[in-house]
């Protein structure tokens, strides 16, 4: 079993829909949680960073962490075709420790 599980998709939704992306993990020591967006043939780009449990909002993006369930989510409101990309979750137990990554979910926003 992988430390971080993420549905590979693809997830296809119409433009303007609310998108929900999720990751589950097994290591209860994880405290730092990140979401990265990766376009085809590009490196990942940091979208959201959250420490411990709770919610964080930035524009159309909301990140949620539920440490009791070992479950994190990324919500995208008013989705746009430009949001079409692969979304990767990453997490670590310590700011200096290596990140453990999910496999990524491919998201397709249909115009």
């Amino acid at each position, binding site marked *: 079993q992988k430390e971080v599980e993420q549905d590979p998709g693809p997830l296809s939704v119409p433009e303007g829909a609310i998108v929900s992306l999720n990751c589950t993990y097994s290591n209860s020591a994880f405290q730092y949680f990140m979401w990265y967006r990766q376009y085809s043939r590009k490196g990942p780009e940091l979208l959201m960073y959250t420490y411990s449990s709770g919610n964080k909002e930035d524009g159309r993006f909301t990140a949620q962490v539920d440490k009791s369930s070992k479950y994190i989510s990324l919500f995208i409101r008013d989705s746009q075709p430009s949001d079409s990309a692969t979304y990767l979750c990453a997490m670590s137990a310590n700011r*200096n420790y*290596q*990140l453990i990554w999910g496999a990524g979910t491919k998201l397709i926003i249909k115009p």
Partner: protein
Amino acid sequence: DAGVTQSPTHLIKTRGQQVTLRCSPKSGHDTVSWYQQALGQGPQFIFQYYEEEERQRGNFPDRFSGHQFPNYSSELNVNALLLGDSALYLCASSFGRVNEKLFFGSGTQLSVL
């Protein structure tokens, strides 16, 4: 402000050869990490360089080695290439060894034939 730059963008090698990939970190960053990303997978951590020393290493064999220069740029070397080494190699930079906000380059696509 230049971001993270990697070279070359693409590389084709044959089994048994050796390869060197290069990375220049984002301005102001002093830490470089290297990742391997196979198709359809998340990045796998290879190692991290800080103050010209390898500080952390993932589960990769000794065929994978690196170097960091005084100007913070870095090289990844892979010896005795295997078909399974074909992947996108990503360089990420940060400041002070902190991994919470990594900036990635566009990667080097390595194909081993």
